[in-house]
């Protein structure tokens, strides 16, 4: 091993280790809670916070077989997946226009997009639900998809615009010499080079559509088979008792598709895409 690089490498691993402890200990705690008998989220005795004592898989069995958890998971996957696709389709064109074209109202449009985020989103829930109802989308997954996509519109457009700004304009000018119009330079030049930003947008779209509770509970409150996972899970809570064990098991199982999606997308976070395109 190259001993000159060992020092910095060791420091990096120590930082990563501290980060892992910070990030994962609460998750480990949830894992312990998901196996605890009696549906208690906490355990007041010290070893029980770190090692599985009396751990059973009962909650997982209940969640998977007796409760329509998998059905809810399927609904959530459809909603989140479609949100991701819609997000990618809609935001990329707008971001490209804001970055490359010069037109009246460009700056005003950008500022508008940013500023409307300043409105407290929670209080916008009721009008949004009412609009979706008026469009006839009450109780349908399409309504949720539309709403979730609109949540991500502003951030994704801005993020992509920022990334497009860093792609040198020379590449598109070179393309224009060969006769590329605006649509072609968007599809053939800018999009392939923006893969890292597209991956971030896809991640953001998926994560936004995945665990959202307030709007989903208003839009799809029943029947059981049509609910998404958060609505279903919190619906398990009755006035007498809250099944923390089931919640903990559900929360951990919710993480699995997220990890799969992220592992797939993070490979696109690669550099060197614009290397060698145009000199200077």
């Amino acid at each position, binding site marked *: 091993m190259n001993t000159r690089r060992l020092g*910095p490498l060791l420091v990096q691993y120590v*930082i*990563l280790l501290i980060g*892992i402890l910070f*990030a994962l200990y*609460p998750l480990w*705690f*949830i894992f312990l*809670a998901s196996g605890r008998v009696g549906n208690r*989220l906490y355990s*007041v005795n*010290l070893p029980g*916070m770190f090692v599985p004592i009396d751990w059973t898989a009962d909650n997982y069995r209940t969640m998977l077989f007796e409760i329509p958890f998998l059905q809810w998971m399927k609904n959530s996957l459809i909603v989140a997946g479609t949100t991701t696709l819609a997000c990618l389709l809609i935001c990329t*064109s*707008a971001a490209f*226009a804001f970055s490359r074209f*010069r*037109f009246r109202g460009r700056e005003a449009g950008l*500022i508008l997009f*940013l500023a*409307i*985020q*300043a*409105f*407290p*989103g*929670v*209080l*916008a829930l009721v009008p949004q639900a009412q*609009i979706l*109802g*008026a469009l006839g989308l009450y109780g349908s997954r399409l309504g949720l998809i*539309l709403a979730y996509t609109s949540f991500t519109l*502003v951030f994704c457009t*801005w993020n992509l615009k*920022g990334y497009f*700004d*860093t*792609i040198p304009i020379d590449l598109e000018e070179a393309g224009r010499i060969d006769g590329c119009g*605006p649509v072609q330079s968007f599809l053939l030049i800018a999009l392939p080079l923006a893969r*890292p930003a597209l991956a971030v947008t896809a*991640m953001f779209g998926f*994560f936004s559509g995945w*665990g959202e509770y307030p709007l989903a509970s208003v839009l799809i409150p029943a029947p059981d088979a049509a609910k998404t996972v*958060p609505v279903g*899970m*919190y619906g398990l809570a009755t006035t007498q008792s809250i099944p923390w064990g089931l919640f903990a098991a*559900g929360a951990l199982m*919710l*993480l699995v598709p*997220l*990890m799969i999606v*992220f*592992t797939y997308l*993070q490979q696109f*976070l690669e*550099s*060197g*895409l*614009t290397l060698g395109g145009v000199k200077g």
Partner: protein
Amino acid sequence: MVGWSGTRKAVTVLAFILPTLLGVILFNIYPMLYNVFISFTNRNQFHPNADCTDTLSSVIEPTCWAFTGAKPPQGLADPFRIISPLLDNYNTLMGNLIKPESLTSLLILVVWFVPVIAALWVDRQQHRKAQRTIPTGAIWLAALVAFVALFYLLKVGQNLQQLTDSGAFFAVVFRTALYVAACIPLFLLVGLTFALILNNEHLPGRTFFRVALILPWGVSTSSIIAALVWQFFFREQGTINQVLQALIISYKPFAFLNNNFWAFFAVTIVNVWMTYPFFMVVILGALQSIPKEQYEAADVDGASWLTKLRHITLPLIRPAIMPAIVLSSITTFQMFGTAWAITRGGPIQGAGKPGATEFVMVYAYKQVFETRAYGRMGAFAVIIFILLFVATLYSLRVTRITKGAYE
């Protein structure tokens, strides 16, 4: 694109932007207008329904739109109407702030910040000159001295107290602003550190670390559980106290959540835990746009990693991460779930006064569910919106992120 104009350009630009614009109009602008309308009415638990015979209501209120087949709700109660002193809701919320004492206090606060703004301005002037006449260190030292001096001369502490006592509004907004100012640098620090480390291709196990470190973002989608788990850590019989008791003999359990500072700290830490993966991902994406030759050229000149960070990495990822910072500030300002789950609005500071962690949305939630005063909450939303809008506009000037590729 140069050399194109007229109808063809207009149509193409519109085609690119239209879907996003439509979505924004429908799901962002319409709810805003609706809330503004509600803020001028007296909608609350006694007047819950809309009056569809009134022209304005029949246009804005979706339950009055006949074409959708929705029937206007019937009830025994009076429908809500536009109220007679039009700005009554606003007055109830902010009335105390318009009094002369409060306005002078606000003015004093603004004057207190003048040295900082002056230092920024002078610094930028000097930066533009061919040769600096005043070094950066001297500017900031002078600003610091002036800042501290003014604090005592203008009795800023007293004035702040007076403003906080004048009503819940200022206290809540100020506390939330403090919370945002504490969270954002932490997000950046943690996200930047991890992104820089995980950007290195030669790090074995890179994918594993990336996936592991992103998990808090995933769990925060079921944020209630995560927030409750963290709340348990800070309890008197919670993990932190028990671990410290086991390690230190004479340690007595400390009630973190009953102490103003520690409750605030706890909510901040949990927020950092939930949000740093988002920043890590955005920064990782931005890091990919930096060409490797820049680093190689710096290596040839013998630059240390700190120099490379300051002069290559940070300036080049700036346009890509600034939007994330601005948007994240806005979202953190409006954050509700975490603070509510951990402290329910924080250690109480007195009857009728907001608690130590009662942020803007927690305050709004308490008001709505205690008095169901939708009209007043509409007014609150509009005021917060105006505040954040102005802050955003100012930040756009400072960060210059609206520039396009041609500028």
